[in-house]
């Protein structure tokens, strides 16, 4: 996950690019003829100062390597954001990002 966050006039804007295949479960492996099992991020959350400020829930219609841009009131330069996603197979990724 890559995160770019900056704060201006008491508003923190965040851009995220998660690295994930977002496999829909509908594609067929050309060699084996089998369906490639679904593997996609279901939830991506952002916490600031102990509070959850954003929750994104995805289905299989979200693009590979999901991109997200959102913003919230509060936050300032130097603050740390906690971002985390979990997918349908139980995989999780957590990252801390500094607000510029």
């Amino acid at each position, binding site marked *: 996950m*890559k995160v770019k966050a900056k704060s201006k006039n008491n508003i923190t804007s965040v851009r995220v690019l998660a690295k994930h295949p977002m496999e829909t479960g509908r594609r067929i492996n050309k060699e084996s003829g089998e369906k490639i099992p679904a593997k996609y991020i279901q939830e991506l959350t952002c916490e600031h100062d102990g509070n959850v400020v954003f929750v994104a829930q995805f289905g299989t219609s979200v693009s590979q390597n999901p991109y997200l*841009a959102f913003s919230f009131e509060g936050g300032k330069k130097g603050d740390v954001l906690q971002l985390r996603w979990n997918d349908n197979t139980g995989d999780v990724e957590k990252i801390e990002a500094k607000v510029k």
Partner: protein
Amino acid sequence: MNFLPKALISISLILLTSVSVATPEQDKETFQSFYTERFPDISKEEFGDGVYALNQDARDQWESMNDFPPYEDDLEEGETLYNTAFKNGKNYASCFENGGENIRQHYPKFDSKRSMVVTLEMAINECRTHNKEEPLPYKKGDIAKISAYMASTSEGSEINVATPKSKDELAAYDAGKQYFYSKRGQLNFSCANCHVQNVGRKARSETLSPALGHPTHFPVYRLKWESFGTLHRRFASCNKQIRAEPLSAQSEAYRNLEYFLTYMSNGLPVNGPASRK
């Protein structure tokens, strides 16, 4: 009165030779002004954005993608690959002037000793083989990432391919020019049919991009490829799309075409690597 016929003959000979063969510089002026006249609202430098300079709906999507470019990871990998030493301890920087930084705009170069056009990708592989490393495949993968990194160090610098002057240089330039203007494939299209004559118009649902500015943003990250690809990768797929036999990457014909095409874009800023559809 005797000298008149001789003078007339000499004058007409001079006129004939000066008009019949345009120099590369004259070609470039004609080429570039064709586009700036056809699209008076677009500055010469903006043509490097291709279709995104011509179509707002497409441009909006492109700008959204650029908010967080899909190729960031691959570009970082290119930088790492570039800075990784070979087994013998040497590295890519030792093969290029200025350590390989801010030089992409001078490629392709004409190697007069070997009498051939050398592209940046070819130079990268020659660096590898000189240092006893295996050469990389030319269309995608590591070579595209390394070339993308090198291009990124030239961002904004003006394309500046040395003007073909010697007999050999002019021969290669002419071969590239001929390729560009010759019809080929089942669809019987030349590069010029789409990218000069019908620039801005549509082929089915695709807007045709200007040939001016074509090479400036390579290697390109195509959303369709989900990876970086070199200019020759695109040449090959373009050939396939008009049902012509694709040539192999770094073949003489493609190198000469790249030579002609890049010279035509002299003066435009390097804006690669970039994302395209």
